């Protein structure tokens, strides 16, 4: 069996005496789409951030492609990993094109490599080419996050880390962008770790779901296995929630 691309090995992290991560171990194989699911405070975002060293663990080790991520300085590591998060964080003083080109420029790409790459990425996220000269303030929320994804993909990373990327968007856009991103994941052969508290989203997009609670991993399995029978009652209840809600909606519609 091939070594996992990302290995989180007995990682712990505490903040002011409170344990945010409690001996967490996870393995993510190359090419997989893994969802970290749980409520606020479960440690899922903290776990995600140990992969690109936005957070450094107190104990344990995180390895990328066999090498400890601590061996490389944070900024350099992050230039090889795509990071998309709920707040998007497009640079308001830069155009869409300049936003997308940030990491390539940090890596020293030649200008004549960058321009076609920007055009390629706008196509990839299904936005018109004339958006390149616009400023983020002129874009809708969904469009901004598409640029956020484009920016994260610009330097051709192997790994994409996403922290509730579509959480601030309306349900229709959320589904649209989720599906579009899964298609990109497959097309580009990415390895994606996505944090979400939306169980439906995790079930529909991910190859594996990791359920976390109180800084611990409660379950780590395929969506199907978790849906059909989870040992832990909390996990079972969590996984049942999308269907419960769908049933309630269906009942409401049947009554009318």
């Amino acid at each position, binding site marked *: 069996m091939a070594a996992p691309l990302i290995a989180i090995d007995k990682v712990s992290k505490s903040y002011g005496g409170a344990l945010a991560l409690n001996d967490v171990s996870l393995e993510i194989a190359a090419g997989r789409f893994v969802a970290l699911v749980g409520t606020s405070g479960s440690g899922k975002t903290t776990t995600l951030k140990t992969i690109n060293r936005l957070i450094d663990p107190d104990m344990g080790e995180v390895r990328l492609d066999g090498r400890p991520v601590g061996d490389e300085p*944070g900024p350099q590591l992050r*230039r090889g990993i795509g*990071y998309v998060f709920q707040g998007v*964080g497009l*640079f*308001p003083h830069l155009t869409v094109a300049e936003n997308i080109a*940030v990491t390539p420029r*940090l890596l020293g790409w030649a200008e004549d490599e960058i321009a076609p790459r920007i055009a390629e990425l706008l196509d990839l996220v299904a936005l018109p080419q004339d958006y390149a000269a616009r400023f983020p303030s002129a874009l809708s929320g969904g469009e901004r996050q598409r640029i956020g994804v484009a920016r994260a993909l610009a330097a051709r990373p192997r790994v994409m880390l996403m922290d509730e990327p579509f959480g601030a968007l309306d349900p229709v856009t959320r589904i649209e962008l989720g599906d579009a991103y899964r298609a990109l994941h497959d097309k580009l052969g990415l390895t994606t770790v996505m944090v979400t508290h939306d169980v439906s989203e995790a079930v529909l997009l991910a190859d594996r779901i990791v359920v976390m609670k109180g800084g611990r991993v409660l379950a780590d399995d395929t969506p199907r296995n978790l849906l059909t029978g989870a040992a832990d009652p909390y996990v079972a209840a969590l996984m049942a929630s999308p269907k419960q809600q769908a049933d309630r909606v269906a009942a409401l519609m049947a009554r009318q």
Partner: protein
Amino acid sequence: MSDGQFAAAWRLLPGYLGQHVLLSSAALLLGLAISLPLSVAAARNPRLRWPVLAIASLIQTIPGLALLALFFPLLLALSMVTHALFGWTLPALGFLPSLLALTLYSMLPILRNGVTGLLGVDPAVLEAADGVGMTPSQRLWKVEAPLAAPVVMAGVRTAAVWTIGAATLSTPVGQTSLGDYIFAGLQTENWVFVLFGCAAAAILAMAADQLLGLVEKGLAMRDRRRVALGAASLVIGAALIIAPSLAGGMTGSGALCDRGQELLRAVHPGRDDG
């Protein structure tokens, strides 16, 4: 008689104005050089923030003239130390104390606005800067500084106007400035001189404020031409005003400077600085 006074005032203008602009711009530039790095440090480090801003505020509460006068004994004391250690003395009157006092005076608006501007940057943008792989230094120059710049410029404007105004108080510590008109006019009951000095200082302050305002607006609107126009006008204007004054030597109008020295000797009999 009024004509003669006006003409006399006008003749003295290049020298006084040159010295005033030289002093104000030196103090403002020095204030920027100290306050900008200090505001970055204070923005990054919450424990540093309060002491730094508190000390700057405290300095602001000292009346301008008192602050300028304070440097006379301070520099005398320091001069004794440097003389004992290295054998050289510091001038306690003239350009140096004026420069130091005015620099301190200019620090607060720049510090406050610097910290406010930096802390006002959207945290999501900062997280993104880290996420795309910028080092802290790259983050500061490429993201934080451009986004905080309009707020910082507003502080620079305030500092500039205050410094230009306070620089008129440098006359009693032996530094030529537009204040020479005012002090001389008060002593000799020459009201044309007093008004001339007030008007000249006010017009200078307004001109600096407007040009810096142009730069501020350009930064806020991301309009490079405005920024370039404002900055170029300031630099060229200052250079044109200062140049003749430097060519003629630092002390400007001798007669009025001597008058200032007389005043000081009357207040501090037995002191030899001058």
